[in-house]
């Protein structure tokens, strides 16, 4: 290759290098340009309006969280047991509450048998539609309850009735049913035998 052609090739190469380098730098800028692009596309399409979240929420933007003292709701408490040798009752039969008011009530449960039993309470509501507006902050039904033999326990329910509750609902019944969790403690009968065996073993150990 003669030197003239060589020089021309080197110049061509440098020109192409410059162009490609400029496009690489431009693409670096494009990476940052994607940020306003993204924000604009989200804003126009309303997909993800993270710059003005209140615009997206619209009517739901302002939520009244005040206690609605103009309404009174009668809440009745009910307790049931499903094949469970416990005693279970609410400490008050009913209560008048205002929507939006934070209320605590207590239930009493006691185990009448000589073995520990695990149970799970399941709530239900009357009328059924009230369940959606009955917000429980804390409840013994959130967890499994294991009662030692003869144990008595006072358990709270803390709730707020949503002010959005339809006008026609004036009475809500909250009903709990306790079910035994057999998977945890086997059957009460088998549990009784097992407990007796443990007792025998313990007394035997005590004797030696």
């Amino acid at each position, binding site marked *: *290759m003669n030197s003239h052609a060589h020089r021309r*090739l080197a110049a*061509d*190469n440098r020109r*192409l*290098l410059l162009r*490609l*380098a400029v*496009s*690489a*730098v*431009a*693409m*670096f*800028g*494009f*990476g*940052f340009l*994607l*940020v306003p692009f*993204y924000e604009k596309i989200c804003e126009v*399409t309303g*997909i*993800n309006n*993270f*710059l003005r979240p209140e615009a997206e929420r619209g009517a739901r933007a302002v939520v009244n969280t005040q206690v609605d003292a103009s309404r009174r709701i009668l809440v009745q408490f009910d307790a049931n047991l499903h094949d469970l040798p416990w005693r279970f009752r609410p400490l008050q039969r009913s209560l008048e509450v205002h929507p939006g008011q934070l209320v605590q009530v207590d239930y009493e449960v006691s185990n009448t048998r000589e073995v520990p039993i695990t149970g799970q309470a399941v709530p239900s509501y009357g009328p059924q539609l009230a369940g959606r507006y009955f917000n429980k902050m804390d409840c013994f039904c959130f967890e499994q309850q294991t009662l030692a033999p003869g144990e008595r326990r006072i358990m709270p329910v803390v709730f707020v009735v949503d002010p959005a509750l339809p006008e026609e609902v004036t009475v809500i019944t909250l009903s709990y049913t306790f079910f035994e969790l057999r998977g945890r403690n086997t059957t009460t009968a088998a549990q009784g035998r097992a407990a007796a065996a443990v007792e025998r073993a313990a007394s035997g150990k005590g004797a030696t």
Partner: protein
Amino acid sequence: MAAVTHEQLHGHHPGPTGLMRWITTTNHKDIGTMYMIFSFIMFLSGGVMALTIRAELFQPGLQVVQPEFFNQLTTMHGLVMVFGAIMPAFVGFANWMIPLMIGASDMAFARMNNWSFWLLPPAAVLLLGSFFVPGGASAAGWTLYAPLSVQMGMGMDLAIFAIHIMGISSIMGAINIVVTVLNMRAPGMTLMKMPLFCWTWLITAYLLIAVMPVLAGAVTMILTDRHFGTSFFNAAGGGDPVMYQHIFWFFGHPEVYIMILPAFGIVSQIIPAFARKPLFGYASMVYATASIAILSFAVWAHHMFATGMPAAGQLFFMYATMLIAVPTGVKVFNWVATMWRGAMTFETPMLWATGFIFVFTMGGFTGLICAIAPIDIQVQDTYYVVAHFHYVLVAGSLFALFAGAYYWLPKWTGHMPSEGLGKLHFWCSIVFFNITFFPMHFLGLAGMPRRIPDYALQFADFNAMASIGAFGFGLSQLIFLVVVVKCVRGGERAAARAWEGAEGLEWTVPSPAPHHTFEEAPIVR
């Protein structure tokens, strides 16, 4: 001897010797060799991480590593394999072979070439060294998703700087390749006469120039979010973590093709050589490669179907992704049509190339399954995805790299690689590969999440199987090391045209290729 007289004729001074020769070299063959040695070292270190991961997952429960370290391992395994092993290996192939294939004496910018390579070892030290800083290495996954990546310790900063450096290295390498291919072809070598490996690398290089800077931008935003009070991705300051995913995958999806297109090129060189037929549908191969590259910019959000995209977006990205199966299908069809009625022999490179087609196609099909948005929402972040991308990255890119290495080792070393060991390497690899990754499909479909060091008991058997396969696969790779060392040391002398059916300018120069080749450009008719 021929090379020495050649150098004397041209009045070259003998350069520095020893280590300085390698540090200061501007020769494309030296640099290509260094790239490949570097990537093999990184491949082994990434492999050790993978085996530690598999050792932990051999049984449910925590036995080998702590969860924090496990997360670092999965992250670093991905980063090291993608940026340290696969990409530099392909650049090494490009450095060695492109000038030989197009009849150029060297790469266009020899000194820049030297610099692109020597940026890599410091980057690797930053990346691997980050295991030893307080808080350990980056553990946000190789995708470095915000907000995790905004919150982690200094290991993340080191990973970001390593990515910056490797990105600069890749961009310089890519610019060099584009200029070499466009300006330095031998007279008569028109673009449509170029070997397909050069074509795939030309397109890959354009992809690199287009998307590596975007990744650099994304990690720079993470860096400024971490230390300079910006809030690109920090939701507390009005940023959006999902935007990181968009920017990352705008880079990430073309990156996937950056790692597979040169593999297509290598396979397209090898299949015709051992089928003793010209490549079927050369022009359609070029167009298919170009359309895969162009489509790759329009499919990134298929990695994000579970981020709560609107249905219109999901449909667009789902159909665009499926569209890529068309040019990819054209390629697989053309390879098979090249083999059709060819006089085929199965030397080691051909075994790897056919193995590639078989296993890569399986990975392609699971890719199509993942492309279906409703299915993807089920398999998102499960082992099904892990199986899919290892089928295309290990059985795709890596197998093609091995195919190419066995194919061109005679040209690089002057000796034929051991056929027996090469075949052993192939059969061990393909069997253990499938033992490792095939069960992962079942694990993923059954719901086993990825990137978690412990799992539910029902996944135990398939995980034990995958771990056994992984150790088999990892150890099989040492066979390759033995093959290369033996081949460098000696063996059967290779002819200039080392393989009977091999075509192309690289086979017209002696084996091993002398230090300087094509000082006078050959004429291509």
